[in-house]
């Protein structure tokens, strides 16, 4: 899209631009109508639902005194969910780091091993956590470990891919330099790769903790554990005041976490 190629075409910049816009808008419209027809989505009903939903939220989703009596219980479950997200992410990160060493171009022991790691990671990443949650329900039941393993598998898959990319990026030069000095594999990893990629890895871990808090709410609704279960319970009892307190507590947790991770990211990167 340089000026030269544009000028060489018979169309001017502006009419070309107009054509690009027209084509984009037409494509989006076509997609929209196709998708609406398939899902039986009624755009006017969708639009009309919004003001109604907002009115409903403002008038019903407000914590009352009775809801405040449930606050200790909500905070207990919230802490559990937060700790679960951290524990899952940290454990998965430890595993993912060692697997990423086997999968990265510069540190892999052999090519078939690297390929196996990449395929395993792709498998765990792309089987939705919902599937793991339902599957683990059969054997673990309504237990916190159901959520733990469901989140663990997807987090492990995601982090392995992310870490492989990180290790690939940072390590090419430093691995070569360390090899030249006669460093052993372990020395290369712990003196070269770990120090140069730790801040990037930490950023990924913090990001996944945030993501996992949101996902664990969903998994909680499915498996009957943690803060998700509490929301589902109040929601199904039509106790919207208490349910709103759950939502607010999650919002506060996520925003506090976002602020902290934002600050950490600024310092370490």
């Amino acid at each position: 899209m340089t000026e030269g190629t544009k000028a060489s075409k018979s169309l001017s910049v502006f009419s070309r631009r107009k054509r690009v816009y027209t084509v984009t808008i037409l494509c989006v419209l076509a997609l929209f109508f196709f998708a609406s027809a398939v899902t039986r989505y009624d755009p006017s009903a969708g639009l009309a639902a919004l003001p109604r939903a907002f009115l409903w939220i403002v008038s019903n989703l407000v914590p009352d005194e009775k809801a405040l009596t449930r606050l200790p219980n909500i905070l207990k479950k919230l802490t559990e969910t937060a700790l679960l997200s951290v524990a899952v992410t940290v454990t998965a990160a430890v595993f993912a780091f060692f697997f990423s060493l086997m999968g990265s171009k510069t540190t892999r022991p052999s090519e078939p091993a690297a390929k196996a790691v990449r395929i395993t990671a792709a498998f765990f990443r792309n089987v939705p956590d919902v599937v793991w949650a339902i599957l683990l329900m059969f054997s673990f039941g309504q237990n916190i470990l159901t959520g733990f393993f469901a989140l663990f598998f997807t987090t492990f898959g995601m982090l392995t891919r992310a870490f492989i990319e990180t290790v690939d990026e940072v390590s090419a030069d430093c691995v070569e330099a360390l090899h030249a000095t006669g460093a052993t594999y372990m020395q290369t990893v712990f003196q070269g790769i770990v120090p140069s990629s730790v801040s990037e890895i930490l950023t990924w871990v913090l990001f996944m903790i945030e993501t996992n808090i949101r996902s664990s709410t969903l998994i909680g609704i499915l498996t009957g554990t943690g803060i998700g279960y509490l929301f589902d319970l109040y929601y199904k009892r039509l106790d919207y005041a208490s349910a709103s307190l759950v939502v607010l507590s999650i919002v506060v947790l996520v925003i506090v976490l976002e602020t902290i991770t934002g600050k950490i990211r600024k310092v370490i990167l």
Partner: protein
Amino acid sequence: MNEVLSAEKAVSGFELRRYMRTTSNGKIRTGAVSRSGLAVKLTLAVLAGLTVAGFLTFDYKDIVLSEAVGATLKNIGTVFLSPRLKYDTFQGILHELLITFCLGILATIFGAIIAFFASLLCAKNIANPGIAAVVRSIVAFIRAVPTILWVLIFAVSAGLGSVAAVAGLTFHSAGYLIKVYSESIEEMDYGTIEALKACGAGFWPIVFQAIVPSSLRYMLAWTFMRFEINFTNAIAMGAAAGAGGIGYNLFMAGSFYFDMREMGFITYVVFIAVILLEAIATQIKAKVK
């Protein structure tokens, strides 16, 4: 010559010792203590502490881990090694997959339109700082509420179905896309905007002749990546909120009929769809970079 020697002496005796740090057994410390290094160590320590605290305080409800793990491995084997359909037809499953796909498309389109206009209000280089701050805090709130809760909240007034699912998914997509769109607007060269302003161009000509042409590629790439997320989210919404699509079939097969083999089949269908989307997204990412 003498001068040089004494200077060296001064350096080694005085200066070096001043800057040199030694460990308790007299070894010279290499590597500097930086703020970032300290922050990394501190964060790692806190995370490790929280992990241990988590494992110690979790209520395991006296589960027998070895039994549960054994049963899980067996179930994983059943799900992934012997998939077949009994309650749904293959065509029906594909149709449900298409519905999930289309729910994702609708949410992405709505999210992108909202995000486009909202990002004009909160990109630092073109927006009014006051309005930008308000929009940013609203967006932070919207993003902090998990998608599933938005869907369930909308379901009360709109009924469970595509309207609630699309509204809930849209909220989160808009929140995410506003952030990346405004970042891509902020990255563009301010000179272009300034030049157009100097010519007396109004707000919309600046948007459509300078901002959109320079960031359209990034915006489209990010939008597609968001679509990938919306697709997986739509599956989850179907399963957890009963909002329709293949996620609902998955939930019914697993938690209602307890049919693991059916679940396996649906999982494979989903898996292939997600892998294809991921492959396309990776290619788009590589092209944009």
